[in-house]
């Protein structure tokens, strides 16, 4: 089945002006105006990195806040504006969604990054490739924030080369038996459902022997172990499958046709990288503030030159992100060109982190307790991870070369 939001009937649509009034009324009732306090030196939380270290209690509290907000928003009809009515969506147009997202910018919305993969990749894949029962079980609940999904693609031996995965799915009458190991699974310890790729046919060429599944993370035989990052963060996991039994109705797409599912998901993953997913805007602003409060840096010609360079890059990226967001909100599918965005973004973040290190010197690498100084250490440590997550720079550039520029495939890459 397909439930393409673009095809839903529009007769229920309300006009944009009324919608705006309703949206503002709803947001006024539940949220504070966006604080500008993050732009004042020394005020507020000074963490910078998306992979910042949090205690388990802090993390849970953060998820609960996100979940409560998601539920409130969904129940008020703003959670899935373009979604179909039968799955709890509002069946409105992309213009409504874009408008809501603009209005929302003026409010202090709880951070909902925990749902980024769940809603950006897992839910669309289930909706597009899942059987009716699985769609009903997960999609609405995921959009309401009740359930969280994670992505089970990477393996210890299959990182950039996802298609070389070896986690096995063996058919046993109406069930599949899953065995193997996944790694770099973001948020698996909070997830209710996983989007799994497994090898169902070892005789076929590697891209043609993979099947995709939605898999309940509570099944017996699944074990999630945290990976500790340099930052101290533990949001990535290893996930072990020890003869896990899964009914065939959880299969997504055809048997041995999982690579097609994967491609559609990976495209969505790259699109996740737009917006200010990596916090570049915030980081550049913090860099500017840091310079401003330090006269020796503000007057240092080298710092000035490099800061100017970075602002150039960030400005370019911002315009591009606006264009890409426009495409997405308009319901256009993300194209391979959006690989560009992640590359440019993580490169700029690297420059930001390097300049911060240069400006702050020892204060960036040792904690003196001063606001906004050692906070940079997290970002400095995170940058290499950002460049790798969702495809290394090299892989992203190759995708660009092949799919956007139309160059031939890299030699002897057997795909």
């Amino acid at each position, binding site marked *: 089945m397909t439930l393409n939001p673009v095809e839903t009937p529009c007769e229920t649509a309300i006009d944009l002006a009324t919608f705006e009034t309703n949206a503002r009324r709803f947001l006024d009732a539940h949220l504070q105006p966006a604080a500008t306090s993050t732009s004042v030196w020394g005020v507020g939380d000074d963490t910078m990195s998306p992979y910042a270290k949090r205690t388990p209690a802090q993390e849970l509290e953060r998820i609960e806040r996100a979940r409560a907000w998601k539920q409130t928003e969904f129940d008020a009809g703003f959670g899935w504006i373009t979604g179909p009515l039968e799955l709890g969506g509002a069946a409105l147009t992309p213009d409504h969604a874009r408008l809501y997202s603009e209005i929302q910018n003026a409010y202090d919305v709880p951070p909902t990054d925990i749902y980024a993969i769940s809603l950006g990749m897992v839910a669309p894949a289930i909706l597009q490739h899942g059987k009716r029962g699985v769609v009903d079980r997960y999609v609405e609940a995921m959009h309401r924030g009740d359930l969280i999904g994670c992505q089970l693609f990477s393996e210890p031996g*299959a*990182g950039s080369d996802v298609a*070389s995965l070896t986690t096995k799915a063996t058919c046993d009458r109406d069930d599949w038996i899953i065995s193997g190991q996944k790694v770099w699974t973001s948020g698996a310890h909070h997830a209710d459902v996983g989007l799994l790729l497994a090898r169902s046919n070892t005789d076929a060429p590697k891209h043609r022997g993979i099947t995709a599944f939605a898999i309940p993370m509570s099944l017996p035989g699944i074990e999630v172990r945290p990976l500790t990052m340099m930052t101290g963060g533990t949001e990535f996991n290893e996930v072990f499958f020890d003869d896990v039994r899964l009914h065939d109705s959880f299969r997504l797409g055809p048997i041995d046709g999982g690579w097609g599912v994967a491609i559609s998901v990976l495209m969505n993953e790259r699109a996740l990288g737009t917006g200010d997913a990596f916090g570049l805007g915030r980081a550049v602003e913090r860099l500017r503030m840091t310079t401003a409060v330090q006269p020796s840096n503000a007057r240092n010609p080298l710092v000035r030159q490099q800061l100017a360079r970075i602002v150039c890059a960030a400005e370019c990226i911002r315009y591009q992100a606006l264009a890409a967001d426009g495409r997405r909100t308009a319901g256009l599918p993300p194209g391979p060109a959006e690989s560009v965005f992640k590359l440019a973004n993580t490169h700029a973040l690297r420059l930001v982190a390097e300049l911060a290190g240069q400006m702050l010197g020892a204060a960036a690498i040792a*904690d003196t307790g001063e606001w906004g100084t050692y906070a940079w250490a997290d970002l400095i440590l995170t940058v*290499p991870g950002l460049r790798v997550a969702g495809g*290394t720079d*090299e892989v992203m550039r190759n995708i660009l070369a092949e799919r956007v520029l139309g160059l031939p495939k890299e030699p002897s890459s057997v*795909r």
Partner: protein
Amino acid sequence: MQFALTEEQTVLQQTASAFVDRYCPAALAKTWDETNHFPADLWQRMADLGWFSLPYPLDWGGGGGSPLEICIIAEALAHSSLDVAMAYVGTFIPGLVIYRHGTDEQRERFKPGLLEGAYRIAVAISEPDAGSDAAALRCSAVDAGDRFIVNGQKAWCTGAGLPGALIAAYVRTDPDAPKHRGISLLLIPGDAQGVQIRRTPTLARHLLGTNEVFFDDVEVPRENLVGALHGGFSLLMSGLDMEKTVMAAAYTGVAQSTLDEMLAYSKERRQFDRPIGNFQALAHPMADLQTEIDAARLLAYRAAWMISSQQPCTREASMAKLKGSETYVAAARLGMQVLAGHGFSTESVMSFRWRESIVATISGGTSQIQRNAVAKSMGLITY
């Protein structure tokens, strides 16, 4: 011009290399760092080999080693970690100040400890608000005849918290003189009354630890004044070329290890049906890196040779420090790209290299400061 090591130097290199393999392989250095562990027995083993006495002249009971030989040890130790190499270098560099500028009595008093590396001499220069101008320090020592009364605060004091630490503190003894002319060097035991030490959380360099030191009416006997009263600034500047040179050798050592580690991974790790090291997009940057490491090593050795042949080499030592530290950072950055996710996980040595490399272009004089020094030697006055 010739580029070969002598036979003795080759043996020294092999000994140091075997030492690292046996007593402090990189994975162990990483564990020490992660657990803030100070491996005291490692120092004892270095002392047993006579390494701490090497920099001192033979007629004083030292090993009479040349700067090049010290570079060879530092470079080899850095294959373990920069921190391990720095701990070695950091022990004799302030020791040489005492040897060169101390009174006969002080030289005799401290001699056994210096030759055996028994002291952890923690150099205390920087202060929280003084910025990068070392001469602007404010920590005060009032002359009370047979002793000084010290008050104030120091920052970035490496190793001050270790047992038996001796703090080599640069303090202001004449508040009215021009800033370079009112500084003196005092040796203050870390456990003296009124000394308080607070460890600073840092990204790396956890073996010795980085500390803030607070002096509250600390009494320091006059015999612990090193060099002339108010003459401390020249002591502070002395030995800088040697320190930069030896550390430059250490940077090339750890950069080479970093490259060796990523190279091994790139040959073993397969993606798209071949070892990832066979992709030019990784192979060529690694080839470039090896070229840069070779170049950085030659710059360090050249500076060492100039020191031993008594040529002024502030410019060449700055070049070596600049190039060495920047090369280590570049190596760690490339290593993170080659190891990708594995590098980001704390399981990998590379995660440790990355953390540690960030310190390299900051400590011991930032890259900007080295560039200023080189620019000055070219007749450019920047401000």
